[in-house]
């Protein structure tokens, strides 16, 4: 054992490596991304790692490897699990040979996601066992436990993390390399009765799964990470607190101030440790459930109280005693628990309530496209080319979702990965006089957009596809994808060409343009929009966060007429007002040149970097 200071996601990766993982596949998504990246960085030589093109494919790659007896981890964020649902639901019936851990990171808040869905629910729906770590150390250990359970019961299992566990850091104890488990896959052994899903097999498997989950619920009641604490609380003999996952740390931290109360920590929300829960509930009058996302623990406890006829009142999200959406915090949990336990909150900090009321209005900082981001230029070109026309700009998931911000205001819809293509077609079929555009990034194109393009061609839609190709998966921290010609194993491979795919599907108008060439970009958009059928423009220019620029422009304040067109039209964060003059912040400007092409008096220019 030695100590390392690790992020939760890094700890999960190191735990998987210590468990002898042979293959890791995933698709990037906050807050899950660093798991796979860390495995890639620190893997033993014979561990295979890939960014798959989407979560469904990752799950299938993982299934195949697990059929051979390999230990497998598949990583994704919670909405990615929706994409991988199809293979996973069936895989639960088929089962695995090698241990298979499906790492899903949920995002209470949500901080960087479209939904506040709860993978603990999903685990109940899909019947997969679920582990829910509360700290970085526990995440490290639990992933190893999860592999053991997975192999023992021949089922994929969930390791469900949340943002604060995944992105929290702690100094933790980790194994030395010589203590890592070594797993040598036996290989795939043909057996159609085992690996080919048919209704008859599914019926039999269903019986087995139900029986297994009853057995697991029993076993989990004595799992050492499900805890029952302070059974003999003097201060609050009739009250109990139930929690799980990261919220355990809120509760235990808060009880340090408020005094010990009986509490149940649920680390395996499915199958629920029923026997342990009965012990917890017995003798209590009232229980409060502190959890995030859905009231999963709360509903289980209500069910158990009913089943065993325990006279206990259960409070939580369903009773609105705990907020039913968004993230909890130490402060919100302190509020919940002082009220529930009937004690006074500790005194406040440096600011009184009056002080807070006097606070000056704080600057509002929505996330924005970086200074010099080529997406800004692409959006602006489309906006100018289509000025005055009836349009629909369907957006998608990625940095370019931020094209919605003022003053660009170029994202009319955003739903889920790849949805912009379908939405543009739906609007087109109902409103043929609207010029419909779908914007999609390069990584999203490979992950989720190709079927949508084929559908548009086949079903005769009129629409323009705009591929914002910055040669990376920028939003999640710059992962490679099929268009970049690099893999996670460090190999250089042939790039998959977006242009050739589109031409292969049958598109006749496919133009690749540099969005930083403003005039040419506007012309290209105009000619595309004028044509019928499905057309595509590929705006190609690298993400400024990977191809660093040492250029920088400046405003010549003698020429500038202070019309502020640059600020009003493109909203680049490097364009600021200082002492009532427009200036360029040289620590941010990348010299992309967009502003200089729209300034009516040519006041912006030069290359002012030393």
């Amino acid at each position, binding site marked *: 054992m030695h*100590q390392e*200071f690790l992020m939760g996601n890094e700890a999960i990766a190191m735990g998987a490596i210590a468990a002898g993982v042979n293959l890791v596949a995933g698709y990037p998504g*906050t*807050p899950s991304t660093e798991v796979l990246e860390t495995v890639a960085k620190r893997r033993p030589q014979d561990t295979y790692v890939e960014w798959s093109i989407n979560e469904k494919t990752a799950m299938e790659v993982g299934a195949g490897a697990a059929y051979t007896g390999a230990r497998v981890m598949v990583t994704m964020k919670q909405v990615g699990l929706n994409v991988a649902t199809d293979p996973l639901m069936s895989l639960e019936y088929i089962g695995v040979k090698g241990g298979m851990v499906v790492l899903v990171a949920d995002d209470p808040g949500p*901080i*960087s996601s479209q939904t506040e869905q709860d993978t603990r629910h999903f685990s109940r729906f899909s019947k997969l066992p679920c582990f829910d770590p509360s*700290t*970085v150390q526990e995440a490290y250990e639990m992933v190893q436990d999860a592999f053991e359970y997975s192999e023992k019961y021949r089922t994929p299992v969930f390791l469900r993390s949340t943002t*604060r566990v995944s*992105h*929290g*850091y*702690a*100094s933790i104890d980790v194994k030395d390399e010589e203590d890592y488990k070594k797993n040598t896959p036996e290989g795939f052994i043909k057996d159609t009765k085992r690996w080919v899903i048919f209704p008859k097999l599914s019926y039999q498997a269903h019986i087995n799964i139900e029986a297994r989950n009853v057995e697991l619920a029993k076993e989990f009641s004595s799992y050492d990470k499900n805890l029952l604490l302070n059974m003999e609380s003097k201060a609050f003999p009739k009250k109990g607190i139930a929690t799980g996952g990261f919220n*355990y*740390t*809120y509760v*235990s*931290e808060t009880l*340090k101030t408020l005094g010990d109360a009986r509490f149940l920590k649920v680390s395996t929300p499915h199958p629920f440790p029923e026997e342990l829960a009965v012990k917890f509930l017995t003798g209590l009058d009232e229980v409060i459930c502190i959890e995030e996302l859905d009231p999963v623990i709360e509903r289980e406890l209500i069910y158990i109280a009913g089943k065993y006829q325990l006279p206990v009142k259960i409070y939580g999200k369903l009773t609105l005693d705990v907020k039913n959406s968004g993230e909890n*915090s*130490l*402060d919100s949990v*302190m509020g919940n628990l002082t009220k529930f336990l009937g004690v006074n909150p*500790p*005194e*406040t*900090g*440096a*600011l009184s309530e009056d*002080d*807070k009321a*006097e*606070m*000056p209005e*704080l*600057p*509002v*900082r*929505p*996330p*924005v*496209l*970086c200074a010099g981001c080529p997406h800004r230029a692409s959006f602006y070109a489309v906006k100018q080319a289509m000025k005055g026309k009836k349009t629909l700009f369907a957006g998608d998931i990625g*940095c370019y979702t*931020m094209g919605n*911000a*003022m*003053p660009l205001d170029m994202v009319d819809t955003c739903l889920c990965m790849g949805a912009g293509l379908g939405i543009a077609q739906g609007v087109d079929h109902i409103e043929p006089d609207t010029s419909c555009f779908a914007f999609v990034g390069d990584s999203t194109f490979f992950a989720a957009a190709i079927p949508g393009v084929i559908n548009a061609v086949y079903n005769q839609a009129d629409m323009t596809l705009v591929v914002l190709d910055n040669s990376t998966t920028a939003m999640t921290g710059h992962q490679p994808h099929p268009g970049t010609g690099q893999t996670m194993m460090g190999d250089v491979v042939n790039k998959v060409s977006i242009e050739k795919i589109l031409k292969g599907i049958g598109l006749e108008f496919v133009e690749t343009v540099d969005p930083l060439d403003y005039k040419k970009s506007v012309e290209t958009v105009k000619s595309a929009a004028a044509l019928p059928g499905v057309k595509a423009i590929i705006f190609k220019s690298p993400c400024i966060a990977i191809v660093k620029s040492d250029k920088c422009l400046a405003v010549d304040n003698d020429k500038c007429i202070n019309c*502020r067109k640059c*600020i*009003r039209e493109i*909203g*680049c*964060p490097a*364009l*600021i*007002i200082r002492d*009532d003059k427009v200036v360029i912040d040289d*620590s941010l400007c990348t010299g992309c040149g967009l502003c200089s092409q729209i300034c009516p008096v040519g006041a912006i220019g030069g290359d002012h970097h030393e």
Partner: protein
Amino acid sequence: MSKNIVLCGVGGQGTILASKLISGAAMNRGIPVKSAETIGMAQRGGSVFSHLRLGDDVDCPMIASGSADIIIGFEPGETVRMLPYLRKGGQVIVSSRPVMPVTAALAGSNYNGSEMLDYIRKKVDKVIVIDTEKACRELGSAKIVNLLLLGAAVNSGALGLDEEDIRKVILTRIPKKFHDLNFKALEYAKKSSL
């Protein structure tokens, strides 16, 4: 003894490196560290924070309102946003340089942070304001804001770490070519925070 530290600023300002240096220094001393920070969309020019907790008896990496021993603010407005976390008698270190949000530029506002600094000075006794813009000009680099603030924080005594701890961690965590510059920034911070 545990220490609760909040670092805050605008995405891209380098709060994460500063937080890494503090945790590295604490770990060199054998003090356990837990921390939480903003990762994701907000890193693109949004408000970002790190919570850092040093000490043995810590379960949660997040800090409760009114319990931070020190706030290290990379931007005046963001420091005010985090002020409810400060405990009574806590220390504030703040850079005077404002970062104008796009929304303010669009609205034609003249946001310059001075109103924010006034509020902090009025409400908090222990405040050190560092004119990082001036310091960067004098030291000839824009990349030392985090070291200037860190230097001032160490000097205030509120971190429970000393200058030597930070120097040591710089030697191991930061590329050699920046060592001199970083040490100069520490010196500068010491002088200007007296």
